[in-house]
């Protein structure tokens, strides 16, 4: 992106003043280098978002922003229903409630290194990954509806995990306001046999070691120390969420004109929050959030099962579970008034600062853990929300490295098997059914995650707590 087209407000804040159909400014948080790497489309898309009805304050792009559908990935926008605000299926994305759950293991690198290979094999055996994989369960119609209403709580009630897991999941693992009746049969059919599966693409499960601590007291509160082993799960609402995205994107695009919405681009398909279509989407989207919660909860159970025979007695506890593709109702301050807003985060992570009531009690004084997925060869991060991100970005931060190379470019440059050998030499074991899938997800195809989290910290969106590097990666 050409930096001349932006006004630099401060080191990491770049602004586009309202012009044309824009109702509010667009603000991009990034270093100059990250801005230069961003596609021009990010600018075009964030400007379009700023033109949607009922948008409050500004349309934001996070440091890892890249070209998405309608909204950029790494986009944040909040809408006021009282001012004709909209909800957008494209503003949430296809993979509804995709997110990261990190598990503490109480183990150190020394405990895991001698059994790394068997642990990798055990995880790969236990956790269904990749195209054509199926979960252990096949849900009936009524079970599907119960899962869509109950989320991770439903999974725990069925014996997958513990009550303690729920206290460390956003919304305590159950999103209220879910409407299974708003979810199409197509969406339900896609999910019937997919519970507890990882999926493919950029989704993964990693065993990681803590290589660096940036904030000792926050790390202490989160229960992480240098050399600790943690497990991170990155996946979402699977086929169900994809189909809900598909169904509502189409319906919203067709109906927009009936609602008097002039779309600058059909990809921005949206409906007024206070409309039957808007409400129906919100109900279906919340059901998909529950599906993602339940999915990560079942995978947590499978991870525990996979650890048990290899490292008997290991106790895996949830540090936190946070989504990065959602629309949530939240209270935020706008022009000195508290307002109830519908905050879209697409490839952006909620990042509540200290003392926010929505954060798990044990972590509340410290702030919400913000879990950032990297690539299989580089690093991931645990960040913490800051008080000031409320002012900057409706308490939102980045979500990952963000791609910088297309899948086709990546497969031209890397071969899956060679890449797996190279990573193995560096002590990183990859288990995947698809070598080409691994090549498409090559670490070099992504932006520098270190630069992304540093920019987020400098911009005040969140603060670094710990850096994680992979030992094992199960890739779909």
């Amino acid at each position: 992106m050409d930096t001349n087209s932006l006004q630099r407000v401060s080191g990491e804040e770049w602004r586009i003043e309202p012009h044309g159909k824009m109702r509010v400014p667009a603000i991009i948080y990034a270093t100059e280098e990250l801005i230069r790497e961003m596609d021009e489309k990010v600018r075009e898309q964030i400007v379009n978002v700023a033109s949607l009805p009922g948008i409050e304050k500004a349309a934001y792009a996070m440091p890892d922003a890249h070209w998405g559908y309608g909204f950029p990935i790494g986009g944040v926008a909040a809408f006021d229903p009282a001012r004709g605000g909209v909800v957008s299926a494209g503003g949430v994305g296809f993979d509804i409630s995709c997110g990261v759950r990190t598990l503490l293991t109480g183990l150190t690198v020394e405990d895991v290194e001698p059994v790394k290979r068997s642990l990798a094999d055990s995880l790969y055996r236990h956790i269904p990954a990749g195209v054509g994989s199926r979960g252990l369960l096949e849900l009936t119609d009524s079970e599907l509806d119960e899962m869509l209403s109950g989320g991770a709580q439903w999974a725990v009630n069925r014996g997958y995990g513990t009550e303690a897991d729920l206290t460390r999941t956003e919304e305590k693992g159950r999103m209220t306001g879910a409407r299974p009746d708003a979810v199409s049969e197509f969406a339900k059919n896609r999910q019937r046999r997919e519970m507890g599966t990882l999926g493919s693409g950029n989704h993964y499960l990693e065993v990681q070691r803590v290589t660096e601590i940036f904030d000792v007291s926050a790390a202490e509160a989160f229960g992480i120390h240098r050399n600790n082993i943690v497990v991170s799960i990155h996946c979402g609402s699977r086929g169900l969420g994809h189909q809900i995205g598909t169904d509502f994107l189409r319906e919203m695009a067709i109906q927009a004109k009936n609602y008097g919405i002039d779309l600058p681009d059909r990809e921005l398909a949206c409906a007024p929050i206070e409309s039957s279509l808007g409400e129906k989407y919100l109900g279906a989207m919340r059901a998909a959030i529950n599906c993602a919660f339940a999915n990560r909860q079942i995978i947590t159970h499978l991870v525990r099962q996979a650890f048990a025979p290899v490292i008997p007695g290991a106790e895996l506890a949830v540090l936190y579970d946070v989504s990065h593709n959602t629309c949530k109702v939240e209270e935020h301050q706008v022009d000195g008034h508290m307002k109830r807003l519908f905050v879209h985060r697409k490839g952006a992570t909620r990042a509540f600062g200290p003392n926010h009531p929505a954060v798990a009690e044990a972590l509340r004084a410290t702030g919400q853990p913000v879990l950032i997925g990297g690539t299989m060869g580089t690093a991931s991060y645990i960040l913490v929300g800051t008080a000031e991100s409320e002012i900057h970005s409706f308490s939102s931060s980045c979500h990952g490295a963000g791609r910088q190379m297309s899948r086709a470019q990546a497969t031209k440059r890397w071969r899956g098997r060679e890449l797996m050998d190279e990573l193995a030499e560096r002590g990183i074991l990859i288990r995947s059914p698809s070598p080409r899938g691994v090549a498409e997800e090559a670490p070099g195809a992504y932006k520098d995650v270190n630069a992304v989290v540093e920019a987020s910290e400098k911009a005040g969106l969140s603060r670094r707590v710990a850096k994680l590097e992979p030992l094992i990666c199960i890739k779909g």
Partner: protein
Amino acid sequence: MNEPRWEHFQHGADVGIRGIGPTKEEAFQQAAVALMAVVTDPEHVALKREVIVEREAPDDEILLMDWLNALIYEMSANQLVFGSFDVLLGDHHLQGRAWGEKVDVERHEPVVEVKGATFTALSVAQNSNRDWVAQCVVDV
């Protein structure tokens, strides 16, 4: 005019699929081959099962999206992969047939699941050679 063919085009995080042919129908068929090629080599798919798709939509572009999404649904819900396609287009109406088989991870080495066809770069139009081009970006 040229032989019907397909290609992929670049999109930041995902993949653009494009079908090209002397008729709109052939462009739709080729777009489906391009979609399958994101997942596996369509030439290695045995044509054992037939799936029939019927859709109605307000315009050709949404019809294309619906056609591709119907195939994505079959791949996801019924674990199918396809190797051959036939499309008939009427007024706002599509009747399509797809032939394929159950995915075999060893043999097909499927790369990635496709989540959905999108409005991004979605178009159905004739190019300067008078060939029909049907394309969009799919989210993977």
